[in-house]
């Protein structure tokens, strides 16, 4: 096409050109077209009273409800409440799960002791824990945090065990030959080698935590995005259901992206996940 130029200035220009090319490419046009068609069909199916699909509140009414709700402080409070629950459960899961996972990954005796217990509890879906949690935790918030904790905990532990156990033995051998002692092996080899698995566990755990929080709120809470969604159904305010769903999706996406960004920062030697 053109001759490759090597100066810094034209390097920047060509990057801009590349970006413009990607953004305005056929792929992007097709994507945008598909989304527009989707919205048109959605709106049309409602106006034309299609069976089943037509019952879903159309984009127009959702937009109207959105305009109203954005000014409502209660809406943003729901966001805050759900985020708080997600992050508190998530962080406790990391605080307990990461050391536990590492210990189980590197110490066989510990692993053999703990693994059966974990494997028995793991199949119980966090949501099934909700009634029990509500009974024995003193406050409603603590029971919510407990349930979100469970969502992230098992994922984190299992990912870390997998990561720690699959460290290439040659790294360990090289490290021992070079004169490492036990704490060098742990802090300089095992930990960095397991870091990617830790972040994978976090990213997946974050997604699970959101699923759990929303459902838990629907069942056992009077606040948060899940509660908002359910309440709108009960009250017959159907467009807000859709807003609730979109909000949950966006919130989950933002949380996972944050984890991914943090993960990439701490593991600069890897290609972007």
């Amino acid at each position, binding site marked *: 096409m053109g001759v490759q130029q090597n100066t810094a200035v034209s390097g920047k220009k060509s990057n801009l050109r590349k970006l413009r090319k990607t953004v305005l490419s056929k792929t992007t046009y097709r994507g945008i077209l598909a989304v527009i068609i989707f919205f048109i069909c959605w709106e049309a199916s409602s106006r034309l009273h299609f069976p089943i699909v037509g019952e879903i509140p159309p984009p127009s009414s959702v937009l109207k409800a959105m305009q109203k709700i954005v000014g409502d402080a209660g809406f943003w409070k729901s966001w805050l409440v759900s985020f708080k629950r997600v992050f508190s459960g998530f962080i406790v899961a990391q605080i307990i799960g990461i050391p536990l996972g590492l210990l189980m990954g590197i110490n066989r005796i510990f692993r053999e002791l703990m693994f059966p217990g974990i494997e028995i509890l793991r199949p119980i879906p966090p949501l099934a824990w909700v009634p029990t949690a509500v009974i024995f935790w003193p406050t409603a918030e603590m029971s919510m945090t407990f349930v979100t904790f469970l969502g992230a905990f098992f994922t984190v532990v299992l990912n870390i065990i997998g990561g720690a156990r699959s460290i*290439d033995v*040659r*790294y360990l*051998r*090289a*490290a*021992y*030959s*070079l*004169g*490492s*002692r036990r704490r*060098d092996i742990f802090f*300089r*080899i095992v930990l*960095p*080698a397991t*870091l990617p698995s830790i972040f994978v566990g976090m990213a997946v755990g974050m997604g699970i935590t959101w699923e759990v929080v929303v459902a838990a709120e629907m069942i056992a809470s009077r606040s948060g995005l899940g509660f908002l969604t359910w309440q709108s159904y009960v009250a017959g305010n159907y467009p807000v259901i859709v807003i609730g769903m979109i909000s949950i999706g966006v919130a989950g996406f933002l949380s996972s992206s944050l984890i991914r960004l943090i993960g990439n920062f701490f*593991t*600069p*030697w*890897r*290609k972007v996940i």
Partner: protein
Amino acid sequence: MVDNGRKASDIKAANTGSSTGEMNFLSVSKSYGVGPLSQPVLEDCSFTIERGKLTVLIGPSGCGKTTIINILAGYENPDSGSVTLDGSPVQGPGKDRLVVFQETALFPWMTTYQNVIYGLKVRKEMSRKELESRAMDLLIKVGLLEFKDKYPTQLSGGMQRRAELIRALINNPKVMMMDEPFRGLDAMTRELMQEYYVRLFEENRGTNLFVTSEIEEAIFLSDRLLIMSNRPAKIRKTIEVNLPRPREFHMLTSLEYLNYKREALEILHEEAMKAFASGSKIAAVDFLEAYSERQASSEN
């Protein structure tokens, strides 16, 4: 300056040859598996790695060369027999015997520089300044200075091998062991690496053990060539390679080289045929390769 002084004494030591690093492998046997599934890999295998020399171990693939390295390095223990370094028995891994593995074992989460200084850092044997200057010297020597802050995944295969070489060399090990380190590199890079490596050896004259399945590489590099048998492995023959140093690639056309090659190939051919007969597929492939080389060289 202190640096220059150290370099001068290194060169002096290089010319007189290393005074340590002799390893004795005596009647070593090793099997994998238990009971009826037990597979002997080494049986009554004995040899000496002479100090200050480049010993090359050659044999068909899968014949136990890596096991020998693992035992010498202390990663595995022999079932019977003894392994000594300068008279004392080997007891596990240590910085006196360092290995460069077949596939890169550079720590991916550390930069080249951090990898190279790793040994010195964890053993805390010298000040940060000394450590830094030593690392820089070696990085410059192998041409990796610009890449010192890159991660291993950002380096080419040849660069990774060079980085691993100096990660080991910086610790002044008594014995350097290389387990088919140039396997998988393209032919040109491989030749370049062979030259790099042999120059490094000829400068340092430390005790080196080099494992390969490539006959040309083996003869080009070695002072002593140990030819291995098939499983269970023993040393079939030791050839003293008396080509002059420094080695040059044009020596590969000399008569002496061709004689050595013929000698070695005869035995390798025999061993490969045995492997072929006993159903070992990998060794059979080497047999075919070695056989076609033999045809080629006999036509010359």
